[in-house]
């Protein structure tokens, strides 16, 4: 995976004319102490991170945490006091104005919290602004603008003025403006913060759908943890100008780095964070042509009363219970005994989409996107994962198993591929 943006030891101090604050900061003095002593504000305190191609990297923090300052250093709107910001081969923090403009014109654009649409230009002219400053001809600009507007479903409003559109539509125009120059990196500074909740939700879903298609590298700023968890492939929690924790949504919810993060995640709706593949366990499965006696042996070894049946391609085809197997003749193939109506969910489903499947009380089969069997979930274990108690998340096996018959087959959570699963968020 290519690294698109690399931020190394970036700090930003405000009001630090003589560089005193920087040297104090390097000595490890606390930020409030520096402010009290010499009046220097530390906006960003030694932040480093990398963003991969096609990733949504969310920087989440409350107001005053320095997230807006940080995102503005990424395209050079604010020059960091120290550190490097590498985009391609260029260091945004130190390159000259001409090179910086070139980078802004081609590689990195921005979507603003309050839309920042030019009120004296039409929607199409707004969208084409980046191309205009690049010096493109009128027809080319118009065409690119219409294409970008079509992506956000506003091609019919090309000749409206921005103030004739609703807030959600205006931000779509802002997004189209960001996309029109076809940049590699898109900075989004609390883009949905000024929208009302319903529209915000809609825009979030739309961004996810759009991102599937575009695969841009997005740095997304928000103060809303739920939004961060929903959109972010990786999330950085920012406090007082520094990163407290960087990780996937699941990492952050199940392993908060400190009390600050813990306090944040306490209210999170976990059923929207964890997916089936996060909580599924490896389970023994039985090939469809196995004889009943062999199948029983497998189940005895695993100590379970129900096993899922797969075909030659490992596709889920059904499930058999101990009862049926014991009642049947020993050499009957499992294919004749299995129940084909098995509750199953895709690995990408969130817990809150699994409640129906869990109703029957039988273990839920988890399949990958091709329908291959990847594991199973005991309905009772779902509740363990909804508890916000950290130990429940930490020790995923223990809590879940307490309520169940012993399951010796060392079950390992399939959490390793959460990233891939996360990108495919189904519409609810």
């Amino acid at each position, binding site marked *: 995976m290519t690294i698109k943006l690399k931020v190394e030891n970036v700090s930003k101090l405000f009001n630090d004319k003589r560089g005193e604050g920087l040297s104090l900061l390097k000595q490890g003095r606390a930020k409030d102490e520096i402010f009290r002593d010499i009046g220097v504000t530390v906006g960003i305190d030694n932040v480093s991170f990398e963003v991969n191609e096609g990733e949504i990297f969310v920087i989440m923090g409350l107001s005053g945490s320095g997230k807006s300052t940080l995102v*503005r250093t990424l*395209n050079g*709107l604010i020059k960091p006091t120290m550190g490097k910001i590498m985009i391609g081969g260029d260091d945004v923090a130190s390159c000259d104005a001409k090179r910086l*403009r*070139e*980078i*802004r*014109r*081609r590689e990195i*654009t*921005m979507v*603003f*919290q*309050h839309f*920042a*649409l*030019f*009120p*004296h*230009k039409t929607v199409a*002219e707004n969208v084409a*602004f*980046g191309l*205009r*400053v*690049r010096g493109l001809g009128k027809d080319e600009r118009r065409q690119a603008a219409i294409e970008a507007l079509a992506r956000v479903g506003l091609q019919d409003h090309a000749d409206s003025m921005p103030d004739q559109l609703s807030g959600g539509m205006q931000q779509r125009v802002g997004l189209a*403006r960001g996309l029109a*120059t076809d940049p590699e990196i898109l*900075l989004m500074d609390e883009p949905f913060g000024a929208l009302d909740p319903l529209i915000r939700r809609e825009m979030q879903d739309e961004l996810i759908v759009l991102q599937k298609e575009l695969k841009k590298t997005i740095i997304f700023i928000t103060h809303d943890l739920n939004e961060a968890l929903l959109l972010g492939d990786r999330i950085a929690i920012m406090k007082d100008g520094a990163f407290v924790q960087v990780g996937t949504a699941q990492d952050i919810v199940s392993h908060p780095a400190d009390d600050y993060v813990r306090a944040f995640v306490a209210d999170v709706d976990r059923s929207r964070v964890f997916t089936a593949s996060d909580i599924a366990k490896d389970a023994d499965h039985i090939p469809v042509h196995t004889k009943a006696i062999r199948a029983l042996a497998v189940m005895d070894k695993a100590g379970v009363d129900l096993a899922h049946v797969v075909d030659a391609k490992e596709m889920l085809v059904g499930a058999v219970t101990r009862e049926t197997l014991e009642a049947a003749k020993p050499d009957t193939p499992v294919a004749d005994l299995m129940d084909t109506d098995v509750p199953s969910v895709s690995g990408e489903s969130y817990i809150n989409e699994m409640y129906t499947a869990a109703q029957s009380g039988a273990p839920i089969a988890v399949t990958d996107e091709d329908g291959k069997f990847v594991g199973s979930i005991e309905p009772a274990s779902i509740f363990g994962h909804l508890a916000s108690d950290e130990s429940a998340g930490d020790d995923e096996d223990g809590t879940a198993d307490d309520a169940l018959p012993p399951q010796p087959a060392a079950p390992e959570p399939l959490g390793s591929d959460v990233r891939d699963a996360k990108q495919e968020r189904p519409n609810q």
Partner: protein
Amino acid sequence: MSPSDLLILPFEDWINAFVRGFLVPNFRPLFRALQVPVNEVLQGFDAFFAWVPMLAVTAAFALLAWRVVGRGMAIVTIVGFCFIDMIELWPETMTTLAMIITSVLFCTVIGVPIGILVARSDRAWKLTRPILDIMQTVPSFVYLVPIVMLFGVGMAPGIIATIIFALPPIIRMTNLGIRNVRGDLIEAAEAFGATPTQTLLEVQVPLAMRTIMAGLNQTLMLAMSMVVIAALIGAGGLGLVVNTGLGRLNVGQATAGGVGIVILAIVLDRITQGFAEPGKGQKTGLIAALKSFVSGQTVEPASQTYSDKTA
């Protein structure tokens, strides 16, 4: 007992020595040269308005007033201009108009760039502000003395006095307009790779246009009042009519000149205010659409000409 018993400052002599002994002998050619462009432009406008028939000028102003302000103002314009013509002051009015347009033109050419400059630099603004304050506090009569010393008498010195007198509002309002452009819009322009010049022409100036127009209106009004006073140093037009009337104690003549000035002032004020007022002339409703259909492309509402001006 007063301070003058102790010490008398020969202030008058100092100024005389400075102006007569230093400025005039050393810089006379420079001040003469400064008059040249003013004179050229003034004579151009003067000749133009003398050449265009009265009815054509009236029709043009009425149309402008109709499009920018409304029907009522168009009627006022027509009636007013006809009245001026019927009291036989049309040529003088046109001279005054040429003088005002010349002054305002120079004020714009000088004032808008200065306004932009001081808007972009706090230091420049700190330096300029007291100068503007002084320019606005000095009574208009006081300007005339040094002007006569340096430039002599006549039309061009009168215009130069007018330019200096009417310059501050347009500088102030341009500065204000540019500074009041929302910060995130400028940030957005920069974030998309606009150069400072592109940001200025594409975003700042168009968005400051209404405020600049309000400044232009103020400048115009000041120019109007100064152009009359400038008649004292040999500038012609309606001011001269008033002056002559005053000198001869001819109440009728002075009043006629005054009425001419008032009519011209009302028309010019309302039209430029129309440009500066938000919402006026930029409605895209049915009536506006019909109006533009009827009148063709004569006058575009201010807001829609932004992009053309800056393109």
